[in-house]
């Protein structure tokens, strides 16, 4: 099975109902604006009370309406998060706007 590098699932509207239906599991997620531009790549780590559900509910509370999201359940949320950030930087030349405000220490990746 090929290893998927990018998170390329369909976007879902970031609403209270969609967030409530998310699993309480660990993983990573992306938030995009209405045009599909990724503005943030986040992780639901072991300190999130209800994993992805808690994180996306928090995102909705802070951002309000007009955003969309996609998630990936993943126990390796930290390394997958770093990977998504590095791949985004390789693809776009910069981090998503909200990650760039407080960038984590990142390496460089040049995916084939």
């Amino acid at each position, binding site marked *: 099975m090929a290893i998927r*590098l990018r998170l390329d699932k369909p976007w879902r509207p970031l609403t209270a109902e969609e967030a409530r239906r998310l699993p309480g599991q660990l993983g990573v997620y992306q938030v995009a604006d209405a045009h599909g531009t990724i503005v943030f790549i986040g992780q639901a780590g*072991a*300190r999130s009370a209800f994993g992805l559900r808690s994180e996306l509910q928090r995102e909705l509370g802070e951002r309000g309406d007009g955003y969309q999201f996609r998630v990936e359940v993943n126990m390796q*949320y*930290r*390394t997958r998060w770093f990977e998504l950030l590095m791949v985004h930087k390789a693809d776009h030349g910069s981090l998503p706007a909200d990650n760039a405000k407080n960038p984590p*220490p990142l390496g460089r*990746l*040049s995916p084939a």
Partner: protein
Amino acid sequence: MDFEPSSEQQMLIDQVRRYVRDEIIPLEAKLDPDASELPSDDHARLVEKTKAMGLFGIDIPKEFGGPDIDIVTRVLLAIEMAQHRAGLYVPCYGTFGGAGLAQIFEANDDQKERYLYPTLRGEKKPFFGLTEPSGGSDPARAIQTRAERKDNGWVLNGAKIFISGADRAQYGIVFARTDASKGRAGITCFIVDADTPGFHVRRVVHTLRSSSYATELEFKDCWVSDHQILGEVNKGFAVANDRLTRQRIPYAAGCIGVAIAAHEMAIEWAKMRSTFGEKLANRQAIQWMLVDNEIDIRTARHFTLEAAEKARRGLPFRTEAAIAKLTASEGGGRVVDRAMQIHGGMGMTKDLPLERWYREMRIRRVGEGPSEVQRMVIAREILGSNLR
């Protein structure tokens, strides 16, 4: 051999034990359970503390500014430094500094100026590029990355896998085949700058060690000059092998440290937890698990200190290092497993460090030479080269 710590060693052990308890564990409690880095301000503050303790750069040889602590003492301290959640792979989050890669101390004067000293000052980070997709246990035969002579230098083509830190490194030590007809005598060690055209970090490799990742590298017509050869042409395997042997001793020490921490947690839990009206500690089934833990830890500690003592005295220690690595990684894994069993459901959660140690300890039976290779090394010693 007497492995009881001297009074000086005990003083250092106590100092590091207090440091782990008072500085590392409280900070770690605020981090994600899979974290492998401290916030930069905390890291900088703690580095100043270890410098004040006179223990910064503990693995750096004295002639290069290290604190001149012998390998036996360093093993005793490494056992202490590993006794926290991230301690197996990131003892004390690197606040005791690092020596970089052992091979780079063998560099010529020009290479020392460009790579060794900046590494010791913390300005450059290296990676170690040995393992390839074709195999890691038998690098002398598995290395397929080629280096071909061109324009007063060498052109590298090939791939490496399971390489830690290559995406953040400024340079790496890369092993490539320079003579296809000579087996292990046809490998050369190159220093490759990370900004060299043709050097690529292609992907992240996710493993059980979810706190940190490895990488896969590609060398595509990557030209390096003759000045980048570490040692001599076709003598690179000795450079790799020496490192692999030496590294097994501190590798074993880390396993012992985590095993001790898990064992202490299990003892404390067994004394506190009651089932069916009886403390776990009063049940023979639990007592025997604790006894087996104690035996595994003492065995690994003895063999690891024996290997360190032989290394300290300048005696051959290849077999002893293999025994140390084998007993510590396998025994340490059993100790963590039993500690989880004693903790029951709590042992499986990310609330406790046991699940992280369990995953990371499993890697230790493969990393730095799998158990089977260690047994081969030991068997050769037992049987002798001529099977006497």
